């Protein structure tokens, strides 16, 4: 049998399970390949739920950018009051989670591995969506509403690049897609369910350290285009304030750069190359801080700004 990439959902569950256990499951999304390892049935469920359209193969075809092993933190926790952590091959301060939350450990571990190990891109903690004319980079802290806004823009016809990573190519200054499931917390789950429909949402994980968490699945079209980078046309810094009338403030290039630098996990590691790529990206984009009290307002502002930016 040929060992080629196929849609994850087309494999038998047992095949994925065996490959995951032996640590030979390889997934490819955007510029990154990932070696996945774990023994929890919850992860297999989650892969079929959240990653059903992602290309995977059962045996490694090459070395990978990152490897993630979801395993017990120690020998005791393998048997008694079982717990798991996600091990990316370097020491991280991870909170051990019960097995039913192993998908969360998996997602967080994968994010950390990409953020800290992949130095070929300057990595910004932001959501990115785009169309055939360009990309929108949405920079906000966790809970700042970037995942909700990105999900809303997906319904508008934008393709998802990522809800966690703006991957800036240091040679071209373009943004690369890395379409992993969009992580939704607490209230945003219902908001997104309302405009996306039930069929794009995974099951909800209750009782996590961050409250309820669910994921919005990536669409096949997002994955098909995941090797196509785009230049940023619009950079947004959303600020969510309940019961506030919507407002827009244009930012200068320098203020934009100073706001983006602290949101990068590796800007400081990459020296001149990341500085120059950042300047190139910001030079080609319009940048705004947008304040809003609900998703509808943020969507209307973004529609308007996107049209003006030629998207």
């Amino acid at each position: 049998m040929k060992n080629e990439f196929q849609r994850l959902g087309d494999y038998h569950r047992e095949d994925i399970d065996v490959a995951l256990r032996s640590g030979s499951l390889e997934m490819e999304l955007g510029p990154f390949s990932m070696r996945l390892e774990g023994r929890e049935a919850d992860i297999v469920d989650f892969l079929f739920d959240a990653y059903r359209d992602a290309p995977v193969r059962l045996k490694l075809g090459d070395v990978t950018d990152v490897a993630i092993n979801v395993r017990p933190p120690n020998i005791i926790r393998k048997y008694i009051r079982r717990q798991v952590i996600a091990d990316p091959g370097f020491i991280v301060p991870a909170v051990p989670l019960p097995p039913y939350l192993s998908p969360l450990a998996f997602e967080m571990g994968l994010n950390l591995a990409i953020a800290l190990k992949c130095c070929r891109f300057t990595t910004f903690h932001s959501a990115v969506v785009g169309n055939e004319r360009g990309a929108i980079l949405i920079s906000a802290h966790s809970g700042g509403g970037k995942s909700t806004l990105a999900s809303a823009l997906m319904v508008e016809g934008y393709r998802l690049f990522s809800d966690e990573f703006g991957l800036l190519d240091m040679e071209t200054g373009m943004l690369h897609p890395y379409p992993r499931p969009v992580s939704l917390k607490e209230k945003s789950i219902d908001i997104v369910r309302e405009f996306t429909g039930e069929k794009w949402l995974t099951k909800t994980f209750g009782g996590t350290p961050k409250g309820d968490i669910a994921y919005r699945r990536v669409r096949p079209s997002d994955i098909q285009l995941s090797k196509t980078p785009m230049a940023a046309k619009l950079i947004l810094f959303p600020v969510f304030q309940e019961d506030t009338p919507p407002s827009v403030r244009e930012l200068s290039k320098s203020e934009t750069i100073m706001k983006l630098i602290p949101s990068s996990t590796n800007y400081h590691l990459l020296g001149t190359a990341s500085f120059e790529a950042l300047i190139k990206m910001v030079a080609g984009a319009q940048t705004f801080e947008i304040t809003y009290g609900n998703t509808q307002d943020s969507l209307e502002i973004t529609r308007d700004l996107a049209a003006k930016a030629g998207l």
Partner: protein
Amino acid sequence: MIRDWLKTIIGQAPMPENIAERAKMIEFADTHHVLGQMAVTWEGKTEGKLKEVLENGLLRTGFDHRMLRFEKDRITRALLGSGIAPILLKGGAYVAVGSKAAKGRRVSDIDIMVSEEQLDQTEGLLRAAGWEFDETTNNDYDIAYYRKYMHELPPLRHNKRQTVVDVHHHLLPRTSRIKLQSNLMLDAAMPLAGGKLKVLAPVDRFIHSAVHSFADGSFDTPARTLVELYYLLRDLSTEEQKNINIRAADVGATQPVATALWILADVLDDTVADTLLKASNAKPSGLIVRYALKQKLMHINKAYSAKTILLIRSHYLRMPWHLLLAHLLRKAIRNVRTLLKRADQEDS
């Protein structure tokens, strides 16, 4: 298997054909911080994903080396006018002289050494420039202990940049069983361009690395150590290589140097090291220690008994029993106190 991987990492064996093994080797190189060195060795000889992954390693070490240059400059600036020219040790020195051991090497802490007479002034000037002791070591006992028994001050961390400087006043703990004539090595240190910093002489850099790895500590970064020794040996001219044994005898480091040569010859089939070892009458560490060193290198994630042997040995080498017991007791009491304090805070 790790023997083959290490040979591949230094370019002395081909890349494994089996992809699963190749992936494991890359993960090993990354986890043990030799991916950058591997990337330098294999530069231009790989393609596809392997090339991209190695590039990650290079980019990462690029930062370390820039950081080091910057901090070297800041240390010089902090000591300006004092007439103190510290010796850069280990990675700092390798990068400063463009050693083969520096290419792609990860560097985290900066090790410098000053004479005992200059220690207080150096500490004062570095602290005035923003380096501070961590809370855990900023107490009377630790401050006295590190000066009286150890070979370096507690780590000094810069309050803005978080960079760490280890200020040495000796090359081994004062109480160490191995009596190293470090003054001979200091006298032979060579100034760098500008004259504000020095480095050990090339042969002494190899000897210091061997001493650091096999006469101090418990061989905690085995893969890195082996790669480092391999390249330090290759920095030396044939003439200098022949001098290693004589110099080691002069400074009182015959056993750690012989152990370093043995492990290079044994694990990497390093013929240069093998020839040097055979030419000397020095004996490497005993059978049990050699066994433990090799086990720890080959089975880094297991080798529990080897690790225990090396841990006990590191304490044995470090100080006489009565001092060690007093010190461990003191640390135990402190740990219990910290735990109690934490429990109290949680209660209230």
